[in-house]
């Protein structure tokens, strides 16, 4: 990824309905590379540009400049090739709520060419791996807890065998037990396969335990991307929170909830 830029034009809500739109830079010349099999964590508060980064790499946004390549494919020009290589887990589980876990997974798997013969065995297997109770596979998603739904979201992402897994705050809003279970599963995936993982989070502890390198994205700018030990050494601090303060001059305030980018600018520029 080199000099990646994305700017949204939005009306400042505080300036009123008829105020002129102005540019809100969500990503500002972001440059970094990831090695295959590496887990990189991008830390940032709500509004820092994490979700914009994930959505750009998911081919859901078109950048305004710079370039992003995944295993040699340009995310804009070669989007169809990218789509076979990438999957994601976002902060919202995002399912058809009246459909069951199995039905939702079937729906997702079909898009990747997995027919009924494949999913008949693959879905129970992957749900078993994420610790989803077999007797609840047929239950509507709306009846499942947030933690359960997030496990199904992980299963959906892994079912299609992505080469690059994008995790956008996968444990936000989960209870401590579910959070640990999801983190443990991410560790397992890394250990058993050469998964390349981009983890965007505002959970410093999660980033520290899961990632090989940690970066801080602040107001669209990537301040650094280094192993945790190097970050602490660079700023002469003991924790990532302290490193954030040293790098930005502000306290790190992690906010729970939806980090949708279109809402992000209010925190960035509010």
């Amino acid at each position: 990824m080199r000099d990646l830029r994305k700017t949204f034009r939005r009306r400042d809500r505080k300036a009123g309905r008829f105020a002129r739109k102005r540019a809100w830079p969500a990503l500002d010349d972001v440059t970094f590379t990831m090695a295959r099999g590496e887990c990189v964590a991008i830390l940032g508060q709500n509004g820092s540009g994490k979700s914009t980064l994930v959505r750009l790499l998911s081919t859901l946004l078109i950048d305004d400049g710079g370039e992003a390549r995944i295993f040699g494919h340009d995310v804009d020009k070669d989007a169809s090739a990218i789509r076979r290589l990438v999957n994601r887990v976002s902060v919202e589980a995002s399912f058809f709520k009246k459909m069951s876990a199995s039905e939702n997974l079937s729906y997702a798997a079909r898009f990747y060419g997995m027919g009924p013969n494949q999913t008949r065995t693959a879905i129970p297997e992957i749900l078993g791996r994420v610790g989803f109770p077999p007797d609840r596979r047929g239950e509507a998603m709306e009846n499942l807890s947030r933690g359960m739904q997030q496990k199904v979201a992980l299963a959906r992402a892994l079912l299609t065998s992505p080469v690059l897994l994008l995790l956008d705050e996968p444990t936000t809003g989960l209870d401590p037990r579910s959070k640990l279970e999801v983190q443990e599963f991410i560790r397992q995936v890394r250990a058993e396969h050469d998964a390349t993982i981009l983890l965007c989070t505002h959970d410093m502890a999660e980033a520290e335990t899961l990632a090989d390198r940690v970066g801080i994205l602040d107001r669209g700018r990537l301040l650094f991307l280094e192993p945790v030990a190097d970050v602490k050494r660079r700023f002469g601090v003991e924790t990532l929170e302290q490193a954030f303060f040293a790098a930005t001059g502000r306290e790190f305030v992690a906010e729970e909830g939806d980090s949708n980018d279109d809402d992000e600018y209010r925190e960035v520029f509010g």
Partner: protein
Amino acid sequence: MSSGVGSTEPPRSGGLGFAGAGAGRFALETRNQLVGLFGIVERNVYLTKRYFLWDVAFMVWTIANTLTIVFIARAIPGITAAEENTAATVLLVGATIWAFLGIIFEFMTETVAWERWEGTIEYTFMAPLSRLVHLFGQGAYAVLYGLIRATILFFVVAAFIGIHAPEANYAAALGLLALASLSFIGVGIMTSVLPLISPEKGAQLGFVCQGVMLVVSGVYYPVSVMPEWMQWISKFSPATYALRGCRASIIHGTGMVWADVWPLLIIAVLATPIGLAVFKVGERHAKRHGKLKRSG
């Protein structure tokens, strides 16, 4: 554990790394796209099952609404019983095709809106499914579902009112409707982009398109009663030929008349590529402006 599940290797079924010749890759890709199309239809079957009672209620409402229209034929003064029967059939065909077209437009226009509402839109649009297959799958289910509902509606209302159609050629009417469906899907693809561009007003604009199409197509009256400029517009609406052909087939037993078939064929051939091109422009606009996202 079978290979592939949870693996981070490129997907075996996806074609990447597939060592075969170009034809083999094409065959594999075609197979994958067809599986994707099946997935869209399968999902809609799941949703129809889950919302079955809603469908029953909606069906009852549609029948009641159609009855209010068809009973108008009974109120026309000074006509014979045969003329009343013809008038009732004309109205019933119009109401049935309105209902059929309404379902296709609803499904197509809501393609984006449903996924946005459920929150799955980002997952669907980042999947390696061609947009044509995605939208055509939605249209195919809409046509199947719409045909079932339209058939039930037609025969229930016909039985209730006591319409006689001894010369009816239902096969020809169904054939014309199937042919018109290809055009309706194409036009529906064009309108389905509206919620992508305007998340709040797009679906409503789709219904405006549906309404305009039916007004100019002579849904309850002959096209000849409209002003000339509206008659000119009606030439471009597939519903004009579907309504005219279906009425002739059911009332007079006419088969598929070439005068109705060729315009439907031309519109069908043009509508889907144009619809797809419009959708792609809209999708790119949405990606540039960050509108391809869930709501709430």
